[in-house]
């Protein structure tokens, strides 16, 4: 449970529309081929030996002839987990924008490599990336998403292309999980006389019924004003301050959806009514009749928010 049940926090930049995503894709493609940072190490025997062992490739030709297996192209320029020099590419901004748009899922769908020649021992390769297209949104089995495609070419020091790769990913929006919390077992019954209260707490308001005619405040609410018989009902959003009038510390028996011990209090509002709620953020042994409280809102499940009370200044 967190302090603010209403949102997960504001986004610093709003998500892009589909149209804006395509505009960004066009912009990134227009950058053309962008050179990256050269490989940290030249093509070398230890890396080739590790790679061959990992792949189970027993062909002796590579080491005999001093060349790297072509499929190792990516290996030479792959950033390590502690890379410090960020190798920017036109793909990065596109991926960030898709993530911000909620297309956080990723799955590689295509990888086509073209080999021009062997890379030789001692050569230091440099990658160059060209963003080549965005397609979507498309409905897929994984969810709605965009296909993003880019090409990488590895150059030797003589600017001769050694290998090329076309890479395509599906960036998709993961289906919303049905519930983020188990349904809270202690649900209130709600009808047309009481709905305003529960809608209020969902919006972070403590609403107390007030008679539209005589102004009498009343809690718990009901269909008529017992003072003037008016059925004209309104409500006041009260200050959210209160004083503890009485309380209990529940130990036994266990209560569904609750961890014992917990505190329930009768809170007297300065507006003149009493209301029942939990006293939270305070050890039970420090709870006292007369203590100042302020309302807080706790999300119990996807639907229910309960008003609770936390120690506060008078």
């Amino acid at each position, binding site marked *: 449970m967190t302090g603010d049940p209403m949102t997960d926090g504001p986004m610093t930049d709003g998500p892009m529309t589909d149209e804006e995503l395509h505009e960004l894709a066009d912009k990134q493609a227009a950058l053309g081929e962008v050179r990256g940072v050269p490989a940290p190490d030249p093509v070398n025997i230890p890396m080739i030996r590790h790679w061959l062992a990992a792949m189970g490739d027993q062909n002796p030709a590579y080491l005999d002839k001093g060349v790297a297996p072509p499929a190792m192209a990516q290996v030479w320029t792959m950033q390590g987990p502690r890379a410090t020099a960020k190798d920017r590419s036109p793909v990065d901004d596109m991926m960030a924008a898709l993530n911000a748009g909620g297309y956080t899922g990723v799955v590689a769908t295509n990888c086509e490599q073209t080999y021009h020649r062997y890379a030789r021992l001692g050569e230091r390769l440099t990658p160059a990336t060209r963003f080549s297209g965005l397609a979507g949104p498309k409905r897929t089995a994984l969810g709605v998403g965009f296909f993003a495609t880019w090409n990488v070419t590895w150059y030797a020091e003589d600017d001769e292309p050694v290998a090329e790769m076309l890479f395509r990913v599906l960036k998709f929006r993961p289906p919303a999980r049905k519930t983020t919390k188990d349904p809270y077992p202690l649900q209130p019954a709600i009808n047309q006389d*009481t709905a305003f209260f529960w809608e209020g707490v969902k919006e972070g308001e403590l609403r107390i019924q007030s008679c539209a005619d005589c102004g009498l405040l009343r809690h718990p609410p009901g269909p008529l004003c017992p003072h003037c018989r008016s059925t004209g009902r309104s409500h006041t959003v009260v200050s959210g301050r209160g004083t503890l009038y009485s309380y*209990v510390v529940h130990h*036994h*028996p266990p209560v569904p959806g609750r961890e014992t011990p917990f505190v*329930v209090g009768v809170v007297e509002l300065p507006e003149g009514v009493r209301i029942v709620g939990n006293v939270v953020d305070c050890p039970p042994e420090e709870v006292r*009749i007369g203590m100042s409280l302020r309302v807080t809102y706790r999300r119990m499940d996807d639907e229910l928010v309960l008003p609770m009370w936390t120690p506060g200044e008078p």
Partner: protein
Amino acid sequence: MLSGRTAIAGIGATEFSKKSGRSELRLAAEAVLSALDDAGLSPADVDGMVTYSQDSNQEIAVARETGIGDLTFFSRVEYGGGAACGTVAHAAMAVATGMARNVVCYRAFNERSGRRFGQPNSRLTGEPTSQGLEMSWHVPFGLMTPAAWVAMFARRYMHRYNATSEDFGRVAVAMRRHAATNPAAWFHQRPITLEEHQASRWIVEPLHLLDCCQESDGAVALVVTSAERARDLRRSPAVITAAAQGSGAGQMMMTSYYRDDMSGLPEMSLVGRQLWEMSGLSPRDIQTAILYDHFTPFVLAQLEELGFCGRGEAPELLKDGGIELDGRLPVNPHGGQLGEAYIHGMNGIAEAVRQIRGTAANQLPAVAHVLVTAGTGVPTSGLILSAG
């Protein structure tokens, strides 16, 4: 007027246990037949039946089992244990007005081995009925057991009058002392000390385990008839000198937290005023009081509301065994619900009848008038029964 026109002529009960091993209907039938035998009446004499609205045995089912035939009056009384004396009040009204001649009141349940009232029940708020809505201001916060509802009042009472947990404990000690010498009591021969009360675990602060009454299986039945007819029956009558029900302004079922100062029981005050007025008696005319004791704190509030002491003075009255058998006002000589059994207050009415008859296990001397109350914290009821 109702006063003096009707009487309780018979009482009957099953044994009090934690597991009766029998259906609730069977318990009801056994208690009803036992009460009729006690009165010297046959099932064919019965033409009226009253029970609690919470009882799971319909009047017609109990009538079928016991051979009771035509019924001209049947009624139910609401609000849990608050119904106890109300069943007798309804029966007395029916007899006094000629709606029925002989009315059986009963309460039967397997409250320990079956559905236990003290356990949380999330269905309390299942439907937007008036009660479901009322509960919805409390149950979502986990405030959903009778002990918790009562504890909220108890804490305020302590604050208002500087009362302590020991003050509540003296009620439990007295009840267990009385039960110790009542062979029908579950806690027969098992008295407790105040230290044991204080050491018992918290249920809902400020209530310890030993502030809470037990849970029981069992049944009690009573036969109400005219005072005149009762005098011709087997037993000496317990005359219904006064009977009353009471619900206060802003009343709720156990959670009347939104009115007054929360340190009293206005509905019991209302019952008391009616009882004194109808009977012409006053607290000093009462030899023993049967006060509903599902939780100890409300015994204090009742002593005050009924005028046995002033407001805030119950702790003083309780000191030095004030409500024990040899005290200023012996309360619940049978051990009450804390000591004898929890039959929703009906066993207390039977004890009042025994005290009038002079046949109680812990018989008090020269009992002329007994005051009986029903469930507290709910709309309630009361009786004054008299010898004669």
